[in-house]
């Protein structure tokens, strides 16, 4: 650097600076894009589905903004009940639907609580509707499994 | 009881009890409300001259600090030879030591059970350690700037004055901390002196004026108050004189400080007592007046 003094040195320094600037810029853009992709792929949930199939199980699907889907299926044999619960969430108190799983060791106990619609967080009236239909199916299930 | 007819309620007398249902609403305010309120029951009456006499402890301590700083200045300037100071200090210490026992005719010594051998041992320890460490002290703060040392010393001497045991019963008082801060300041200042002998003499002098002198003072004050006042006045004037030889402005300011502490502050204390309004009542937390430590010792 010190070999080429005068205007030439100045120029090279300038070019180098602008090059470095553009590199920084492109790196910033790249990182932002990467972050955005990551956000769309891992964080932003577009749609959540709850599928309850009589005598088979409950399937929860959440599809991300990038199109990735993640599915969890819970067999009916493990489901103890579906309930609406309240929780303090951030600076709010919300209602949420959750699935209670049976404890395999101690049947009347609950081993796990699986919350449903974690990102959508629907309001109570909507939850009640879902809850009623879930209860209908669960009640039907219980009737048929105990009667024969 | 709530079912009693209304005519009775007029005659029923309100009682300050909770266990009876009384025919009054819950938010009823009786004439006896707040009748147990007392004001200023623990307020003390102060005598002006008594307060002035008590303030002499503060004066003494201020003067001690002043004398110490003046002596240090003389040493630093080379106006005072260390031998001379050491000799004077030794002589005055011996006189003080004899006085200490003479004032109460050795009663305090008997009570504490401290032997003369222990005193000698302490004196030896002081002298040996100070003498042994004085070369270290000399080089200790070489690289530290003089301003830092001055700031530190001022801070430590102020701390010494704040935490000194003036006889008040407060949480902040800690005679140990006070003495330690004074020694720290003296070590800092001594390290600025030109030779290690100077440092040694300075630290010895600090011990005499900050540790031994207050002990003698306390005894003087307790046994012969009149001579104590005299000693205080003498000490204050000598400190003022020493300061005057360095700086006239400083001496005037110091004299003003002494006057304000010994005369003005007691006056204000007595005046402000008139505005005191302390509320007492049955809700106060009871104080345990007895000394309960006797059960444990």
């Amino acid at each position, binding site marked *: 650097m010190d070999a080429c003094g005068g205007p030439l040195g100045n120029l090279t320094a300038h070019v180098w600076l602008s090059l470095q600037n553009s590199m920084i810029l492109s790196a910033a853009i790249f990182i932002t894009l990467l972050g955005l992709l990551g956000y769309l792929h891992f964080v932003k949930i577009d749609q959540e589905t709850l599928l309850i199939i009589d005598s088979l199980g409950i399937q929860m699907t959440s599809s991300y903004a990038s199109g990735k889907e993640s599915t969890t299926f819970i067999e009916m044999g493990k489901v103890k*009940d579906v*309930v*609406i*619960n*309240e*929780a*303090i969430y951030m*600076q*709010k*108190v*919300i*209602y949420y639907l959750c699935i*209670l799983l049976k404890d395999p060791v101690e049947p009347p106990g609950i081993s796990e609580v699986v919350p449903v619609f974690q990102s959508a967080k629907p*309001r*109570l009236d909507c939850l*009640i509707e879902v*809850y*009623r239909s879930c*209860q209908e199916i669960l009640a039907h299930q219980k009737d048929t499994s105990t009667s024969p | 009881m709530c079912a009693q007819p209304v005519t009775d309620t007029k005659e029923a007398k309100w009682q*300050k*009890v*909770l*266990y009876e*249902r009384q025919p009054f*609403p*819950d*938010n009823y*305010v009786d004439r006896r*409300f*707040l009748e*147990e*309120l007392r004001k200023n029951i623990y307020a003390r009456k102060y005598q002006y001259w008594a307060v002035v006499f008590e303030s002499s402890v503060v004066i003494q301590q201020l003067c001690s600090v002043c004398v110490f700083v003046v002596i240090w200045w003389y040493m630093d300037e080379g106006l005072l030879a260390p031998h001379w100071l050491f000799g004077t200090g030794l002589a005055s210490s011996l006189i003080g030591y004899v006085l200490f026992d003479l004032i109460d005719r050795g009663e305090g010594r008997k009570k504490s059970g401290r032997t003369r051998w222990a005193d000698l041992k302490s004196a030896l320890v002081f002298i040996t350690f100070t003498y042994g460490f004085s070369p270290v002290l000399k080089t200790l703060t070489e690289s530290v700037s003089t301003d830092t040392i001055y700031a530190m010393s001022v801070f430590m001497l102020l701390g010494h004055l704040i935490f000194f045991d003036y006889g008040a019963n407060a949480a902040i008082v800690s005679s140990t901390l006070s003495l330690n801060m004074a020694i720290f300041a003296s070590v800092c200042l001594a390290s600025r002196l030109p030779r290690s002998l100077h440092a040694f003499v300075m630290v010895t002098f600090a011990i005499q004026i900050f540790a031994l002198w207050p002990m003698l003072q306390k005894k003087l004050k307790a046994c012969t108050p009149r001579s104590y006042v005299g000693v205080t006045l003498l000490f204050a004037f000598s400190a003022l004189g020493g300061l005057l030889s360095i700086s006239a402005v400083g001496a005037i300011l110091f004299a003003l400080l002494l006057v304000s502490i010994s005369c003005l502050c007691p006056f204000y204390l007595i005046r402000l007592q008139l505005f005191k309004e*302390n*509320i*007492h*009542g*049955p*809700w*106060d*937390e*009871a*104080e*345990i*007046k*007895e000394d*309960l430590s006797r*059960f*444990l010792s």
Partner: protein
Amino acid sequence: MACRGGGGHGQPPSATLFRVSPGNLSTRRTLTHNICMVSDFFYPNMGGVESHIYQLSQCLIERGHKVIIVTHAYGNRKGIRYLTNGLKVYYLPLKVMYNQSTATTLFHSLPLLRYIFVRERVTIIHSHSSFSAMAHDALFHAKTMGLQTVFTDHSLFGFADVSSVLTNKLLTVSLCDTNHIICVSYTSKENTVLRAALNPEIVSVIPNAVDPTDFTPDPFRRHDSVITIVVVSRLVYRKGTDLLSGIIPEICQKYPDLNFIIGGEGPKRIILEEVRERYQLQDRVLLLGALEHKDVRNVLVQGHIFLNTSLTEAFCMAIVEAASCGLQVVSTRVGGIPEVLPENLIILCEPSVKSLCEGLEKAIFQLKSGALPAPENIHNIVKTFYTWRNVAERTEKVYDRVAGEAVLPMDKRLDRLISHCGPVTGYIFALLAVFDFLFLIFLRWMTPDSLIDVAVDATGPRGAWTHQCPHRIKRREKNKMFKAR
């Protein structure tokens, strides 16, 4: 903890309304309130305030009101819980600063508290304990939101030292526009009126209560060959543990047939242990350590005399509990203690070792001469004194009165703060009140009240819990609560 009732699954509401038991129906009133109790102190923490809130809430629920409790999270216990009879408790995730009291910034709790007040349609905020920062926060926010406020003071404060000067100023600010204040004894009322510079007309005295069925005497549990003195208190300076350390050797030297049982834990326990070692009283002074509330009765019934050495006390529950168990009570004459029990049931002494020893000797003499009434008789007298139903009735009257009052609008509130709390403090807190109001407007703009789901009532006139078979749930919940303790 699930809200099964919330789904209203299958039960037609008209059918269940008639299933309410007749006893319940008789106490149901036309005017019911939605009450929110706020305090930092609640179960699983143990103490007088905690049990006061719990018992009062239970009795108010019984009388047909809707009651919820808001407190801060205790360890793992956070979120929303239901206790006996559908008493809903919000354990809010707020940071605890000192002595189980939350840190306050005066604003950070507003979003959550406002959300709860709106979704539960609360009409009256009832805060407890002047030590609780959350209670004061809630009062402040409730007044900003235009809700009626009631405050219960459970403690006494001096006026002499710096800390009490500061706290008294804060109490003045907090209570200057509170609708009504409840104190637990007349002494406490005088204290609170002086501290907060209040009009005594808006201060009611409603004592605490004990559940007399929990504290019944059992004379067979105690040995009549020796005299047993029971002390149950936290071992701290304010409870006079230092006095106790002086009394124990004095009395034990005088009476060889006398034992002490001391229940409770605290920093002063060490001096009791030292006294016990020094005077070789290991077999006569029994230190039980921390007691659970349900064990207190079992300890009390083992003794003949109950000793209370408190140095300050607004309303001493411990002596009422002891008297209810049929013990002769010896206590210091401090605070509201002289108001609590009639003279024939208590021996009052000055707070000094000498006076307390004399009181104890008098009690021992009475005991030996048989001048004391039987425990059963004492119990029968005491059990009529303080009941939670009575407390709830009287509190309800306060609510009725408060519900009719108008809440000060913002401008009047600011005027009152400035005129009532002194020039500096008044302006500062008026400014804070304005900030709070602006914050509330911002929150209302962020999440309008219409977007907040109305909570399903657990208690109250439309409560889901009152419509279900209460007994089954009661038992289950009770078990759960005991486990938590």
